C-alpha cells in the first residue's frame, strides 16, 4: 500500500510499504477513504516531538471501511463505514472504565518510555511517536486498528466523509476544551489560535452557550473564518492582546482562556526570540507564548483550558499568577471515544457541519506538498483532507 512516512525534520515521503495485518484478536483493518493532516502533525513535521523513528507512518485523523476483523471483534462487520478515534483504548482498565480513554493503561506498548519522561503513561496514539506506542498511522491506504471493538464508530450513510471525519480528533478536541471551561451564557471565552482546533473551540463554545467568544491569531483568513462562526477577533500583530481583552471585558479579563496553539507559538519581539533560542538549544521543548498570555489575561478564578499539544518542558510559566489568582488549569489528550455519540448526534441534527474548516482536498501522493503548504500557511490553508484510495 501507499503510506506517508516520516524521515526527519521537514522530510515526509509517500512510500510503498507492506499492507497492515491483524496482529491481535481485537484488531481490525480499515481501508481508508479520507484522512486529514492535523495541526499536531506539524509538530512531528518540525521535528519537535521526541522518539520519532525514520520510516514511521504518521496520521491520526482517518475513517474508512472495515475490510478485515480479528476473531474477538463481534460488534463490527466487514463493510461497515467507521470513523476511528485517534487514541487507542482497551475499554477494560480503570481509566477507560472512568471514561478517560486517552489515558488507557493497556494500549501503549512503550509505556515504560512515557513513564521515564512524564511520570506515567497515557494511551497509545496512532502515528504519533514511539512515546505513545509507535503505532503506524492513518495517512495511508490501510490501517490496523487495535481494540476495534471499543474505538471505531459506525456512521450513517447519508452523512459525507467530510461531515464526520473530524469526529476522529479535532471536533471532540475543540469541544472538550470548551466543555472544560464550564461555560455560562454570561461568559466571555478567549481562544488563542484559529487553526482547525481553534475553529472547533469557537463553534463548541457557542454550542455550549457562551455569550461572547474572542479569537486571537494573525492570519486574516483564519480570523475571517472565526468571525464567520460569530467570534470577535484580535490580530496580535496589530493590537496588544492583554489590553484588548481587558478593554472588551471591562478590565476583568475573559472568564475562560483556551490555548489552541501549543508548543510552537509565534511571538514578535525579544520574548519570541528568547523562546526560539531556548528551544533551538534544547533548554525547553516548547515555546509557551500563547499559554503565558492566556494565563495573564484570564479573570481571577477563571479557567485555563489547554488543548494545544506540549511534548516535554516549557519555561517561565507564571505559576504566581495561577496560584494567587485561583486559576484552574484543564488539559489532556481528548478521550474521543466519550464524545463520539453525543457529537455525531449534533451533526445528525444539523447543529454543526464540521466540513466548514476544510480549505484543501488533495490526493495522498500530494501529502508532502500539503504539509509544507499547511506549515507555511500558504494559499490560505487551514485544513487539508487527503484521499488515499
Amino acid at each position, binding site marked *: 500500500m501507499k*503510506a506517508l*512516512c516520516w524521515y526527519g525534520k521537514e522530510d515526509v515521503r509517500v*512510500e510503498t510499504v507492506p499492507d497492515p495485518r491483524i496482529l491481535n484478536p481485537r484488531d481490525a483493518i480499515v481501508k481508508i477513504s479520507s484522512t486529514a493532516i492535523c495541526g499536531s502533525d506539524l509538530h512531528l513535521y518540525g521535528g519537535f516531538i521526541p522518539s*520519532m*523513528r525514520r*520510516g514511521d*507512518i504518521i496520521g491520526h485523523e482517518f475513517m474508512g471501511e472495515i475490510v478485515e476483523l480479528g476473531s474477538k471483534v463481534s460488534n463490527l462487520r466487514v463493510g461497515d463505514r467507521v470513523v476511528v478515534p485517534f487514541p487507542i483504548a482497551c475499554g477494560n482498565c480503570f481509566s477507560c472504565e472512568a471514561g478517560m480513554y486517552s489515558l488507557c493503561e493497556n*494500549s501503549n*506498548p512503550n509505556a515504560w518510555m512515557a513513564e521515564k519522561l512524564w511520570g506515567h503513561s497515557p494511551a497509545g496514539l496512532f502515528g504519533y511517536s514511539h512515546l505513545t506506542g509507535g503505532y503506524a498511522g492513518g495517512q495511508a491506504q490501510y490501517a*490496523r486498528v487495535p481494540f476495534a471493538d471499543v474505538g471505531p464508530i459506525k456512521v450513517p450513510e447519508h452523512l459525507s466523509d467530510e461531515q464526520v471525519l473530524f469526529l476522529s480528533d479535532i471536533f471532540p478536541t475543540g469541544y472538550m476544551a470548551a466543555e472544560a471551561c464550564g461555560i455560562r451564557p454570561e461568559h466571555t471565552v478567549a481562544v488563542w489560535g484559529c487553526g482547525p482546533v481553534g475553529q472547533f473551540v469557537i463553534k463548541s463554545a457557542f454550542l455550549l452557550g457562551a455569550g461572547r467568544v474572542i479569537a486571537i491569531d494573525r492570519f486574516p483568513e483564519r480570523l475571517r473564518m472565526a468571525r464567520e462562526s460569530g467570534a470577535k477577533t484580535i490580530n496580535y500583530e496589530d493590537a496588544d492582546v492583554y489590553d484588548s481583552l481587558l478593554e472588551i471585558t471591562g478590565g476583568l479579563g475573559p472568564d475562560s482562556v483556551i490555548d489552541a496553539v501549543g508548543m510552537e507559538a509565534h511571538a514578535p519581539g525579544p520574548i519570541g526570540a528568547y523562546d526560539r533560542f531556548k528551544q533551538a538549544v534544547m533548554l525547553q521543548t516548547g515555546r509557551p507564548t500563547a499559554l503565558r498570555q492566556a494565563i495573564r489575561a484570564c479573570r481571577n478564578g477563571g479557567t485555563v483550558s489547554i488543548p494545544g499539544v506540549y511534548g516535554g518542558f516549557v519555561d517561565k510559566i507564571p505559576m504566581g499568577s495561577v496560584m494567587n489568582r485561583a486559576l484552574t488549569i484543564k488539559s489532556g489528550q481528548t478521550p474521543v471515544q466519550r464524545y463520539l455519540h453525543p457529537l455525531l448526534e449534533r451533526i445528525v441534527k444539523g447543529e454543526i457541519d464540521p466540513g466548514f474548516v476544510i480549505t484543501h482536498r488533495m490526493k495522498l501522493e500530494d501529502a508532502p506538498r500539503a504539509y509544507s503548504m499547511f506549515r507555511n500557511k500558504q494559499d490560505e490553508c487551514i485544513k487539508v483532507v487527503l484521499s488515499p484510495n
Partner: protein
Amino acid sequence: MGLREIGVGAGILASERKAGWLRARVAGDVIDLAMLKSSFDSRRSRRVRLSGATAGVAAITAADIFYARKLSAVEPGTGHIRVEASMAVNKPAAECYEFWRDVTNFPKFMKNVETTRVSDGRTHWKVRAGLTNLEWDADITEDVPSETISWQSVNCAELPNSGSVRFEPRLGARGANVRLAMEYEAPAAGLGGAADGFLKTISQHQVRENLRRFKSVMECGEFPVTEGQPSGRQMCAAKKEAVQ
C-alpha cells in the same frame, strides 16, 4: 546528564564503596549509548559527529566497566539479584491468583518464558536467554489462595532463582495490586559488579514489563503489540538490498 555525571563523580571520589558508584556510571553510559543510537535513527546530517561521540562514550563505558570490575574484586560481590515490581490490575485478587496459579499461563505474559509445565507436583521451566535456553525445575513453597504464591528452583538449576507474587485487594474493591518479587544468581556474576548492575537494571525492566503484560492479559485478553506492522523502514531495507 551533566548533573548526573557530576553527582556520580562526587560519589566515586567521596565514597568507600566506589564500585557501586562506578556501576551507576556504567548504567549512565548505557543510557548515553542508547540515546546516541536513537540519534542515529533520527538524524542523517551529523553522522560523523555522532560517530565521534559514540566512540568516545563507548571508550568511557569500557573504562568504567574495567575499573568497576577491578574494584568489585576487592568487595564481596554476591552475584545475587533481587528485583521487585507492582501493578494495579482491574480484576479481583481471586481471579488474578487463579490465572497465576496455573503455571502453564506464564508464556502468555512472561516474555522470555518458552514453556512451563507441571509433572509430579513440580513445575518445569524453559526460558530463552540470548541464543540459548535455560531450564530448571521449581517447587511451589507457599500457596495461599487469592493471596500469595512463592516458588523456588531445585536440583542445581541452570539459573538458580526464587520468586513470590502477592495479590492485595485495592481500596474500594477496585481490583488488585499485584506485587512480584524475583531473585536469582546472576549467570554473569563472573563478569564482576558492573555486569551485575547492568543485569539488575535489565531484570528490573523485564520483571515490570512482564507484570504489565499480566495486567493487560487479565484486563483485555491480549497485550499491545506493534511488531509486524508496516513502516517505511522495511522499504529502506528492501532498497538497500536491491542496490547491493
